């Protein structure tokens, strides 16, 4: 039997509290609410399911304005299966409706691979308007003949159907809660923060965005199916563009990343107009309130549920930082045969040649330094090695494997890099980030070990609460945890004090023996390079001008001239 990997699930108190509160509200409602209110509450659940789906796309940093178009696909599927008298009944049809919406979600996700931000939002809005036209032209199956969608025995009554809708909502939220704790869920949050960092951590940005849209569309499709069962015959009116926009506005206001937020949003959308009606106030005030609420939420920088979650988090005391055990400061071994071989690597930005015929060899099992003045092409080399420059020419071979031509996330299986800029996703905890970046199953022990080795904060801290220096160490830890053959560190000590830099140098010198990876260290701090590296290569104006053992190489007049200018070298 194949070994099935279970996602690493951490149950936090806040999650339990939210889940428990949501279930309690639903249970009380199922027993206590009178008929009419129960119908409204079912509508609230339908909206909540769609909202929770919207939260997935939002979590991945994209704005989708066509959520109800996906819901229309789900409802259309249910109505069609009903007219066809398909086997299985409503429960299966709802699932089928969700699945039918998935390809549409992926289709809308396709432009997301190239268009970002507002441009993407415009495309989703265009899709919503198009769906309006198509739905109005096609008409819902059975709408003209008033063929109601039948509800099977146990959910035939309004009370039974409310419980059914609640179960569907709980299932959708539970499933997304589980996914959230896997690497796929972490990828959604990481891609929002930085696409480059996501790809460099070995995750396909394309797949991440498409799965986010697919999951979101699935939830919307399910919501549409449940709606079809609730009201019997659906019409195009239920899924108009302006309603999708209102859904988006409520999602911004209430926050739909959490089950509680989605439910709150659903309740708002259903009950605010109802209360206004009973007060004799025009129902249009509801949308004015939602718009004001969304603007207010954005001035706070967080939706209602996010603000609440943040406050819950702030109340917990921060645990003390783990003590760093001191190891033996040992210089890296000179290393064995060649691990990385770069030949004739050339990169041009327009007329500027950033790298010119660079030949470079990093031996196995060692730490190699790459130094050079500003603008020498060090970061360009890192980008070319990790695959961010498809226009680069030349050969890159790592342990006998050709890397050139591979996309970034595939190279990341063998070669990891860190960034000069702070690119650790702030939406994750330390532990979740490390597991996400590892791209393999890692135990608590392994995570704790690498954290202790580099002096990283404990796994339950939030990345957003850390200082820049700690984030850079965390990035290095994540790269090591992925067990690549080569780690390229782009100025990992920026933001650290001199003493901390030297401590990091000692740690890096141990990396080959401890983790079986060679290190290519790009650094300005020559003390750190001398301390950690067995080899040094010097880059200037896009060419390698010297390479060899640190002491001898740094003493070469060419190197001094590159760093200090002609006069200093002659003096």
């Amino acid at each position, binding site marked *: 039997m194949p070994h099935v990997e279970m996602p690493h699930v951490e149950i936090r108190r806040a999650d339990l509290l939210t889940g428990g509160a949501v279930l309690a509200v639903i249970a009380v409602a199922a027993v206590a609410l009178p008929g009419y209110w129960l119908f409204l509450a079912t509508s609230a659940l339908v909206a909540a399911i769609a909202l929770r789906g919207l939260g997935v796309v939002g979590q991945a940093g994209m704005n989708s304005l066509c959520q109800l178009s996906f819901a229309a696909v789900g409802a259309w599927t249910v109505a069609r299966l009903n007219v066809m008298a398909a086997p299985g009944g409503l429960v299966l049809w709802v699932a089928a409706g969700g699945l039918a919406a998935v390809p549409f979600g992926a289709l809308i996700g396709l432009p997301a691979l190239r268009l970002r931000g507002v441009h993407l939002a415009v495309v989703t809005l265009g899709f919503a308007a198009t769906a309006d036209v198509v739905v109005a032209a096609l008409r819902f199956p059975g709408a003209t003949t008033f063929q109601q969608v039948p509800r099977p025995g146990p959910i035939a009554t309004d009370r039974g159907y409310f419980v059914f809708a609640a179960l569907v909502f709980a299932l959708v939220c539970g499933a997304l809660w589980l996914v959230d704790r896997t690497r796929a869920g972490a990828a959604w949050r990481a891609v929002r923060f930085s696409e480059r960092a996501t790809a460099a951590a070995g995750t396909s940005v394309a797949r991440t965005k498409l799965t986010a849209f697919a999951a979101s569309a699935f939830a919307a499709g399910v919501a549409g199916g449940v709606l079809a069962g609730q009201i019997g015959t659906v019409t195009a009116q239920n899924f108009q563009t302006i309603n999708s926009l209102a859904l988006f506005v409520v999602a911004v206001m209430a926050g739909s990343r959490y089950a509680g937020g989605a439910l709150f949003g659903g309740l708002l959308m259903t009950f605010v107009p109802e209360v206004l009606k009973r007060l004799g106030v025009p129902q249009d005030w509801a949308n004015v309130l939602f718009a004001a609420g969304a603007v207010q939420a*954005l001035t706070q920088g967080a939706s209602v549920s996010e603000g609440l979650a943040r406050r819950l988090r702030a109340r917990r005391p921060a645990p003390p930082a783990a003590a760093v055990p001191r190891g033996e400061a040992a210089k890296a071994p000179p290393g064995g045969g060649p691990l990385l071989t770069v030949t004739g690597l050339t990169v041009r930005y327009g007329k500027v040649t950033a790298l010119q015929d660079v030949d470079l060899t990093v031996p196995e099992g060692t730490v190699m330094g790459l130094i050079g003045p500003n603008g020498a092409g060090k970061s360009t080399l890192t980008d070319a090695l990790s695959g961010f420059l498809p226009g680069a020419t030349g050969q890159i071979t790592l342990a006998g494997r050709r890397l050139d031509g591979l996309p970034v996330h595939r190279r990341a299986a063998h070669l990891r890099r860190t960034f000069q800029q702070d690119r650790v996703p702030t939406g994750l905890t330390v532990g979740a980030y490390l597991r996400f970046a590892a791209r393999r199953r890692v135990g608590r022990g392994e995570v704790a070990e690498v954290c202790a080795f580099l002096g990283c904060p404990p796994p339950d801290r939030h990345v957003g609460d850390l200082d820049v220096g700690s984030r850079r160490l965390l990035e290095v830890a994540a790269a090591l945890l992925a067990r690549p053959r080569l780690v390229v560190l782009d100025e990992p000590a920026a933001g650290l004090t001199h003493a901390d830099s030297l401590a990091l140098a000692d740690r890096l010198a141990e990396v080959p023996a401890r983790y079986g990876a060679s290190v290519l260290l790009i650094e300005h701090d020559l003390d750190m390079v001398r301390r950690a590296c067995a080899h040094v290569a010097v880059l200037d104006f896009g060419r390698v001008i010297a390479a060899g053992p640190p002491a001898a190489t740094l003493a070469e007049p060419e190197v001094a001239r590159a760093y200090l200018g002609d006069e200093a070298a002659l003096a």
Partner: protein
Amino acid sequence: MLDGAVAGLAGGGAYAALGLCLTLMFRLVRVVNFAQAAIGVIGVYGMALLADAGLPYALAAPAGLLAAGLVAAALGWIMARWFAEAGADQRSAIAIAFLVGLLAVSFLAFGTHPRRVPGPFGGALLTVGGVTVTRAAAVCALLAPALAAGAHLLLTRTAVGLRLRALSERPTTAELLGIPSRRLAVGTWAATGALAAAVLMVVAPQQSADQSSLALMVIPACTAALVGGFRSLTGTVAGGLGLGVMQGVLAHVEDLQQYRDAVPFAVILAILVWSQRREVWDAAR
């Protein structure tokens, strides 16, 4: 067919002109103003309300423009007051909230029933070889390129234009140089808001003029702006006119008639995905 294409110029010109407002807003104040047409609706319905009350068109129309300009200025002030530092994504999300809220306000203020909108541009202008050119089509088709040229001249030849460009390209540097950012931003909102109202005042008398469909004219306008990449004024005008002509032509093709609002979107999406097919990362490095 030609008839349809010419008839489509009215809509196309409106899309182009509204698209120009969107492009200018995006370039100058970093927002895709989804509420652009909704602001215009306030002006058009305000004008219609005053005209119904017996005010002559020559007075009602400027009053409508003023109303739209004031509403836009208020929204712009909210944006400049609380979201000056926010990115385009967040500001655009706020614009969506503005759209939803403003449409509701419009229903509250003017009622949910569509109003008859008076206008001086009804009827045919001329008929050449069996093809009728309506006044509205002529006005819209000429208005859009004229607007683009005017905006171009304003931005490149005047002191205000220079300040606006400085503000859009380097907001912090511009502010450090003493350019009054909030005043200019609110002014941009007000000007484009009044402009949107003017455009809608031309087209609203010719078509179904309920508030939702007028407010959602921002969608084809967005599509036009997207053709210009939210940067190019010429691209936006071409996109808007092209979209309108395509819809006009499709209205005469029986099989596609009911999908005429959907087909252009699919075409433009295809163009976009093809033109953006090269992999681009989210940050320069």
